[in-house]
């Protein structure tokens, strides 16, 4: 069943949240992400980016205000199979051996039955996702043998293997060098255009996507900027990616 296109993919209305009394992490956040948009959410560490993502995805309950996904309350969203999420690398996975194919196959879990092995059609989708991120030759290699950028591409392939309508990436380029960050951002832009996926790219370093995204949202306890990156005040640009604006 298709998602309700009359509503924004993500909608936060006057949302506030705190982990402790009188220490708000986010105050009065209004944010609407329309279907098909590519939005970067940036801001300093501790500024509330990850909390905003957790609220938007229904993983946390706002103290006040409302959070909706495609018009439904985010906490009880009925079409979670349409959501893709790439968490911070530090939270990812197992310490043991795991291959690229095993990682990407996990992306098919939300689609279809949990029982038994992957069906033929699912395997084809997994192979296609691996090919799309350029890891076919390394599909059966242990993830631990890959570079940080390659590992991150495997997790992006996992998210796309789930055929999401909305994809959220939390610090997808953390610990990856600037060149690899730019390559990842370009790859992400191509994939989300090809597959028409609404994308929320959350990172304290937004330089890699500054010339790609249509909209930049800066979060510092609330939303302090929301607009096209070219209208961002000069002093707020990410100095680590100065070339992005050249």
């Amino acid at each position: 069943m298709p998602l309700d296109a009359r509503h924004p993919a993500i909608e936060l209305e006057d949302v506030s949240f705190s982990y402790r009394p009188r220490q708000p992490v986010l105050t009065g956040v209004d944010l609407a992400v329309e279907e098909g948009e590519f939005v970067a959410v940036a801001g300093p560490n501790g500024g509330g980016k990850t909390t905003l993502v957790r609220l938007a995805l229904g993983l946390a309950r706002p103290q006040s205000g409302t959070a909706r996904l495609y018009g439904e309350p985010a906490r009880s969203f009925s079409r979670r199979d349409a959501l893709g999420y790439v968490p911070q690398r530090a939270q990812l996975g197992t310490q043991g051996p795991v291959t690229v194919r095993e990682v990407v196959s996990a992306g098919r879990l939300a689609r279809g039955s949990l029982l038994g092995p992957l069906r033929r059609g699912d395997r084809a989708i997994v192979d296609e996702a691996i090919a799309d991120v350029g890891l076919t030759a390394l599909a059966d290699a242990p993830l631990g043998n890959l570079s940080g950028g390659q590992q991150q591409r495997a997790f992006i392939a996992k998210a796309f293997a789930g055929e999401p309508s909305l994809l959220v990436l939390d610090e997808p380029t953390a610990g990856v060098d600037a060149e690899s960050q730019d390559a990842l951002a370009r790859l992400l832009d191509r994939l989300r255009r090809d597959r028409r996926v609404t994308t929320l790219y959350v990172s304290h370093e937004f330089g890699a996507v500054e010339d790609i995204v249509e909209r930049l949202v800066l979060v510092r306890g609330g939303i302090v900027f929301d607009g096209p990156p070219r209208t961002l005040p000069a002093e707020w640009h990410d100095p680590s990616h100065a070339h992005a604006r050249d």
Partner: protein
Amino acid sequence: MLETEFMRLAFATGAVVGLLAPAVGFFLVQRNMSLIGDGIGHTAFAGVAVGYLLGVAPVVTALLAAVAGAVGVEWLRSRRRAAGDQALALLFYTGLAAGVVLASSAGAFNVDLFSFLFGSILTVTRGDLVLVTVLGVGGLVTIGLLYRALAGVVVDEEGARVAGVPVAALNVLVAGLAGLTIGLSMQIVGILLIAALMVLPVIAAGRVAWSMRSSVLLAMGIGVASVFAGLTVAYYADLPPGGAIVLAAAAAFGVTSLLEAARAHR
């Protein structure tokens, strides 16, 4: 050795236990919960004592206590009412204390109790073998059917939760299977050492495995080999089987570490 019925029963039971313990333990080790088996084991100890106190088969009460303890610790952990190691500490010490108090009340501080703590070849009956086989094979089939889902949660628990995969139910299932494994294994390996059979083969397999699937299968192979080697040594040297089995699993870790080092130097 195998002409005696008690050894045939011990080997048959041990084969199921040797396959099941690492298969379940794999999902605990990968989630950094290697020590949960110890906590569940102590709950099983309380269950044994309850069995003596009530005059019910201790295997049955221990099995129930182990599953309840495992599910309880997972509930505490998932609700963040207690951090992972705090939930474990609660389970560990409460189970041990309850076991000591109840066993003492039942007047059961004797050799029988020690056989549950450290394992005993002589205690396995035909009825136990049927129970272990039915429940153990049931556990293995469950893991086989849900392997892809359980592995997916190991790879990326948060991503699975966002996408609507029933992560909480799968985590409770793993905890329940851990309780089941401990309840079924305590006669062969003993309550105090069963957790080691869930963990050591997995760690050993991880040194030489190349994928999650190969890791699970190798761990199960090492588990069975450790049980057979340990039971053999225990029979001929008149030793408690639990210690011999766990030392065999520890030796397997030594072997795979050497293989890993040799591979790295090639």
